[in-house]
């Protein structure tokens, strides 16, 4: 049995091999890479344009000024870019592979199946715009005249990581349903629809909407906690909430995935 350190080295090597494969593949289809990068860039522009237009006619949205709101929107874009870059294609291909029986290929690989399906490809066009999303956040913080401490920035990075974990877990949970339902069609639209709420400040939601998008689904917390950390410093309760939500959703998603694998009927004879 290999030691944890050996395992970590083993998985790091596997991940680097996948990253190298993705890089080579992207460079083979350079025009496609440029087009998809432009697509992502345009959609980020759409989100920022909405904020710019709304703030032409109002000074505040639920107590948040234009640059504070830009920090939220920028953070939402950053988490989204990282999700697209690392996991989106892999998880959607998992749904297709389970239906077609190609999932066998991952079961037979030398590593944990969840790791193998989650890291097979990296979408570089997603990454290309992640620094841009970060630059949007940095510019908004600069316009607010704030100078976050190293501690705040480290906490922000950690919280973005937690947000990424929550999004990954949510997607994995939904896609894992193909083990039972055979189809995950229409989920993409639903995911983007729900994710729109991550661009809203917590204070804008009341009543049922607050129950759903603040408490039941951690959509708001994913962006609001990192944004508040840069704007107001690290706050204990929201920090515990975000880290706890990430741990909880990851646990649920991994449990459902493992249950699903047990149901998986291999395509081989």
């Amino acid at each position, binding site marked *: 049995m290999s030691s944890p350190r050996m395992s970590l080295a083993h998985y790091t090597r596997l991940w680097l091999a996948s990253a190298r494969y993705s890089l080579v593949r992207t460079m083979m289809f350079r025009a*496609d890479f440029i087009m998809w990068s432009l697509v992502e860039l345009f959609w980020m522009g759409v989100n920022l344009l909405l904020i710019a237009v*709304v703030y032409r006619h109002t000074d505040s*949205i639920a107590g948040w000024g234009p640059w504070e709101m830009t920090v939220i929107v920028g953070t939402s874009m950053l988490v989204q870019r990282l999700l697209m870059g690392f996991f989106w294609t892999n998880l959607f291909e998992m749904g297709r592979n389970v239906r077609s029986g190609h999932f066998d290929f991952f079961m037979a690989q030398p590593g944990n199946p969840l790791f193998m399906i989650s890291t097979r490809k990296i979408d570089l066009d997603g990454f290309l715009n992640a620094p841009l999303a970060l630059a949007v956040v940095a510019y908004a913080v600069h316009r607010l005249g704030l100078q976050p401490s190293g501690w705040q920035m480290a906490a922000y990075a950690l919280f973005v990581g937690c947000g990424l974990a929550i999004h990954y877990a949510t997607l994995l949970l939904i896609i894992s349903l193909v083990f039972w339902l055979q189809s995950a069609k229409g989920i993409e639209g639903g995911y983007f*629809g729900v994710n729109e709420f991550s661009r809203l400040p917590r204070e804008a939601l009341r009543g049922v909407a607050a129950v759903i998008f603040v408490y039941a689904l951690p959509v708001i917390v994913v962006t609001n906690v990192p944004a508040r950390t840069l704007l107001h410093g690290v706050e204990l309760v929201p920090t515990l909430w975000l880290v706890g939500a990430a741990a909880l959703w990851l646990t649920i998603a991994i449990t459902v995935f493992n249950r699903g694998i047990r149901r998986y009927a291999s395509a081989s004879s």
Partner: protein
Amino acid sequence: MLAVLAKYRAVFVVGLQSSLVYRWNFAVRAAFSLVHLAFVFILWGAAFAGQTQVGGFDLRQTLTYFIVMLVLQFFISAMNEDYEVSEDIRNGLINQFLLKPVNYYLYRLTVFVSARLVSGALALLPVLLALPLLAPYLTLPPLSWNYAAAVPALVMSALIQFTIAYCFGLLTFWFLEIQSFIILSLAVETVLGGQVFPLDLLPRWLYDFSAYLPYYYQMYFPVALLTGRITDEAFILRGLGIQLFWVIALLGVAQLLWHRGLRRHTAVGG
């Protein structure tokens, strides 16, 4: 003439039947649109806090704009038409249209009309279910010339949307993968079609410029007519004129792409 109509009537009936097979997909899509509508309500509700008007319109008028936009999208928007044309070309299915007395554009347009009738009807279901919640926010202008002008505007909007999608599908004659073109164009259409925010909230010079683009007439123009955001008769007539120009221009582009594309096309197989 009657024989031609009968031909496309048959296509229309088959299109209706095919669309009904995907009724749950349309219904789910419409239900998810209500999630987007909830986002719009919350965002604009928060933006209106402390003020009665934004850009000359109150909260109810603004929310009515988005509700009408949502419903009309299912009646006149192009959804998968670009991909369907692309698949026909990639798989060689257009070969049959080259041998039969069927105009491919009219065939696709007929299928589009039947599909939108189904998707529009199905979109009304979740909207009707949500009507008790939406009703307090609905405020439509009194009966006026606007409604009469909205009829040709809606027809031409559907033609513009379909023809743009058709043209993107035809790009498959030149490019193997057109998805990125489509999604890039969708971002532009979404903003300049007024789906993200009412275009009249843009700076005046940008709004005036957008009124010369085809995107303005894809969604914003008919919705603005129906919700009373555009009332000036001279402006409406000018808008209908520009919209007609874009319909004709896009039909010309579609024809050009079709004929040029066919020169590159190779039909194989028995």
